[in-house]
């Protein structure tokens, strides 16, 4: 806990007290990112820096499941808890506007995805990480010939299948919340160690991890029955199935690589803060998909 999980300001390896004081000061100044983080992770009742310091201990405490288990647990409680994220709720049996909101905003996310993975690849010396990222780039963006189109191509085809031409999708700028999230992930890629960028980005693939029920998820990303019951257009089915089939392996392999490289306590705590920042950005970005869906609801 030596890096602020709301703004990523650094406080050094023994900076826990400085971090607590920073959170108290920024919240006292009514900064929305810091107030939000405290509301959601510490509680809604104001306390002093000493109280914040005490409250941070359980937030960052890694249990017997190790760092990967901690990441899965935090992710599940944020997106798949008793009140699931509204986009997850809407995607269970998605209406056309929800899928179109997904298409229009996610094209921007996937382009940032490529940049973030490229930053990791450029910075690491681990051949396993390089191979993992290259495979991920091909799956998500490059594709492997006409029989195995990329996730990005499948996304655009989903839009076309729902009546939204790709040139209109590609010409639509991101909503402000999507823009802020992308800028946040770009800043992480440029300024933070590659293993933290890896945690920030590949933990997000947990969203489509179909085995999170074992970690306490109350539901899946979408109702798996929609892949087979004929309620979805074929292009939408192909897009959702690709993530459903790929993201268990993608996210689990990434978590293992992350755990291998974040071995000392200071590096692990920094990584935890970067991950927490990333899932706040992702939360807002998923809401932006719903906001965009309203454009197609009339």
């Amino acid at each position: 806990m030596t890096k602020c999980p709301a703004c990523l300001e650094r406080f050094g390896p023994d900076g826990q007290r400085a971090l607590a004081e920073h959170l108290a000061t920024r919240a006292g100044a009514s900064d929305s990112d810091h107030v939000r983080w405290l509301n959601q992770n510490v509680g809604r009742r104001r306390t002093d820096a000493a109280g914040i310091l005490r409250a941070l201990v359980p937030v960052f405490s890694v249990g017997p499941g190790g760092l990967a288990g901690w990441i899965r647990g935090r992710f599940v409680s944020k997106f798949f808890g008793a009140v699931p994220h509204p986009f997850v709720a809407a995607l269970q049996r998605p209406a056309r506007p929800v899928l179109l909101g997904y298409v229009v905003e996610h094209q921007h996310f996937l382009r940032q995805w490529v940049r973030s993975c490229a930053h990791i690849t450029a910075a690491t010396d681990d051949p396993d990480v390089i191979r993992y990222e290259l495979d991920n780039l091909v799956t998500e963006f490059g594709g492997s010939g006409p029989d195995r189109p990329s996730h990005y191509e499948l996304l655009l085809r989903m839009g076309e299948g729902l009546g939204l031409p790709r040139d209109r999708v590609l010409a639509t700028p991101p909503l402000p919340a999507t823009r802020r999230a992308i800028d946040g992930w770009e800043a992480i890629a440029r300024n933070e160690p590659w293993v933290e960028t890896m945690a920030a980005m590949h933990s997000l693939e947990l969203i489509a991890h179909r085995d999170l029920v074992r970690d306490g998820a109350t539901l899946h990303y979408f109702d798996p029955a929609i892949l087979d019951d004929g309620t979805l257009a074929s292009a939408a089915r192909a897009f959702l199935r690709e993530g459903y089939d790929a993201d268990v392996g993608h996210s689990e392999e990434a978590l293992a690589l992350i755990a291998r490289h974040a071995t000392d306590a200071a590096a692990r705590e920094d990584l935890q803060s970067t991950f927490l920042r990333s899932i706040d950005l992702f939360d807002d970005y998923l809401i932006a998909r719903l906001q965009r869906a309203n454009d197609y609801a009339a």
Partner: protein
Amino acid sequence: MRRNYTGCAICDSTWGDVWAEVEGERLFFCCGICVTQFRHLVDRIKASTGWPTVDAIEISGDRRGRRCVAAHGADRFGCFVAFNADGDVREFRPEAPPSVSR
């Protein structure tokens, strides 16, 4: 305006230190986004009901969505509201307010 929250007018948090005037009254908020949310909520209630003012508002729920019961004199109005990251209304749905127990 009577409210059920003692902290921030929309989320009840006691972090932050923003004071903003809404309906002629200075209210406490934890951050600027909550000010935006609360003003939008009051505007939507007034637009839906035609009331000139909102006398009272009770809020429950969390950031994923809030249920509200507003009052003007003896009239009551219920709604569900959810916001986007900027504090603008993403979803607003009138609902029957819970019946008053006597």
